[in-house]
């Protein structure tokens, strides 16, 4: 235990190593490969999200960092130190569990104090630190209550306090907001972000909720079938998803097949010969057949006769649904079956089913996926 504690301050160069580093980490359960050769590096002080649908391997990855699952192969480093085979109780990471896993037989105070007691911290210090921690999560005065008397959101905050009080190098959060209702979830997202700023600890957050990941995390890794498909800031991933899976998982996308006509100018042609433009640097080197995509909210609709700049596809409105903040259109075009368009209700002109329209968007809003 002492060796673990010394690392941060004592050894030279430790400050520069990433908080968490996975090197070719793989986890197999029998024939099933849950995590497939993942390598990633998470810098100090980051709010990092592992995002993906259920079964994509995100929780398994988190559990390997926490030490609850052994790796089949690969190396896990915390602040440069190899902890691959180390038991959870010997790692300076703490976890907020999906079901909170509060000890039902202990009071809130004892739940939060649990980690400190195990490390023989002096009672006076425990009392003080638990007090501070409960203040941080706004639960002062609940010390002597049992967990079951608290609401879901409060239990969630106790779980957070119980982990944070140990001042871990890295805090692991396994779908921590999954059990909360929508309103509370939104509040807790902001709360979590605030706490992360305040304590300055690396958070690794597992979630299947893209909005949650984008709200909180400064780096998001999108996982699919045991692999990381795309990693970057929310804006980077959203604007340039690069794979069909990411494009569909993070928001909605219109995808269409195209052929590269002029890679230097960024010109591509759809099946019917319609020419579109793309940022040339997004085109893969050498590829002839590509799939390009555009987000529904980047497309504007205009009547066929008005002259338009940028990429334009002609079509017919087949469905229009007004949902308050925006209007959703489905446009039948020749080039691809249907184009989803989300128009903010800024312009007076609304289109009705049957109208001939052109769908227009800027070339730089076009992305290429593999």
């Amino acid at each position, binding site marked *: 235990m002492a060796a673990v504690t010394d690392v941060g301050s004592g050894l030279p160069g430790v400050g520069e190593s990433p908080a968490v580093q996975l090197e070719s980490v793989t986890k197999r359960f029998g024939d099933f490969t849950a995590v497939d050769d993942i390598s990633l590096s998470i810098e100090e002080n980051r709010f990092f999200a592992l995002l993906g649908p259920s079964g994509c391997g995100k929780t398994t990855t988190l559990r390997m960092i926490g030490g*609850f699952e052994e790796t089949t192969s690969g190396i896990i480093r915390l602040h440069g130190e190899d902890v691959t085979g180390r038991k959870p109780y010997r790692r300076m990471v703490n976890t907020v569990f999906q079901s909170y896993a509060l000890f039902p037989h202990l009071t809130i105070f004892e739940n939060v104090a649990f980690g400190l007691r*195990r490390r023989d911290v002096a009672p006076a210090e425990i009392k003080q630190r638990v007090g501070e921690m409960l203040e941080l999560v706004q639960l002062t005065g609940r010390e002597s209550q049992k967990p079951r008397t608290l609401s879901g959101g409060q239990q969630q905050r106790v779980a957070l306090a119980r982990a944070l009080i140990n001042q871990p190098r890295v805090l692991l959060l396994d779908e921590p907001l999954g059990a909360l209702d929508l309103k509370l979830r939104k509040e807790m997202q902001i709360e979590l972000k605030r706490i992360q700023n305040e304590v300055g600890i690396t958070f690794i957050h597992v979630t299947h909720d893209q909005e949650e990941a984008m709200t909180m995390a400064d780096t998001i890794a999108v996982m699919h079938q045991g692999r990381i498909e795309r990693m970057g800031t929310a804006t980077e991933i959203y604007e340039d998803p690069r794979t069909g899976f990411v494009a569909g998982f993070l928001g909605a996308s219109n995808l269409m097949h195209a052929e590269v006509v002029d890679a230097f100018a960024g010109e591509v042609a759809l099946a019917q010969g319609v020419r579109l433009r793309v940022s040339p640097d997004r085109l893969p080197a050498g590829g002839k057949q590509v799939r390009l995509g555009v987000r529904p909210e980047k497309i504007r609709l205009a009547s066929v006769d008005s002259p338009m700049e940028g990429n334009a596809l002609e079509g017919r409105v087949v469905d229009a649904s007004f949902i308050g903040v925006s209007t959703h259109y489905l446009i039948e075009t020749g080039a691809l079956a249907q184009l989803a368009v989300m128009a903010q209700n800024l312009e007076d002109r609304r289109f009705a089913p049957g109208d001939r329209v052109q769908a227009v968007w800027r070339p730089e809003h076009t992305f290429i996926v593999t």
Partner: protein
Amino acid sequence: MSAVAREAPPTARRATWRRKLVPYGLLLPGGVWLIVFYVVPMLRLVSVSLQSGIFPRYRFAWAWSNYAELVTNYGGQAVNSLVYAFLATAIALLIAYPLAYFIAFRGGRWKNFLLVMLLMPFLMPFLLRTLSWKIILADNGLVVDVLRAVHLLGEDGRLLATGVAVVAGIVYNFLAFMTLPIYVSLEKIDRSLVEAANDLYASPTVAFRKVTFPLSRPGVVAGTLLTFIPAVGDYVNAVLLGTPQQFMIGNVIQSRFLVVLDYPVAAALSFTLMIVTVLLIIPYVRAAGTEDLVA
């Protein structure tokens, strides 16, 4: 709308009445059962215990002397009862806890099979089960041979007809009553609680001490009570596996009631046994935490 609203109250009132009565209705069968087969016999027992006379003409006479018999004549059997029951409960707990723990946490897909195996002996009648221990512990049996060979028993030492045999019999007969409640309480412990304890720097041993065991305490309390209470009043094991020297208070009550037909003393002994058992249990349940029992 308003017509409906005006009509509603009578129906609502009837519904509330019914809702209030339903719980009592559900209590009724059990309540009647308790009164007919428990409260009435109990009062009868107390009144018989204060009778005096010669069979079959006993009269109520405030005969407190019946109660004195326990101390004057049957002190030895009373002590046997408490000592054997206590030992048997402790040993059963030591065997049952690891057993239940293994089935609950490591049983995997064998869980149900293991539970059936645990209950299998109960398909055999109680008497036969106990009698078979006569064979196991017999003077020329394997167990005695082995114990003699390793000098845990003397040359002519024996197990049958000793307190050891009686305690062994009780442990065996009540093991499932100890194991099942513990199993149930362990089974329902959320595994992520143990992981959370590990995450918070508790080694597996500490996690067991601080989390798993405290959470299984309701099962331990239930199991020990289900073992201790019947064990104190047991007489079959002492008859079949012991000698009159190992007789317990149950043997005395049985012979007073059914052989000597001395109902008043038998009743006094029965009532005393009950009171003593309750007095022993109350502090135990208090110390172990009544909150856990109901939670």
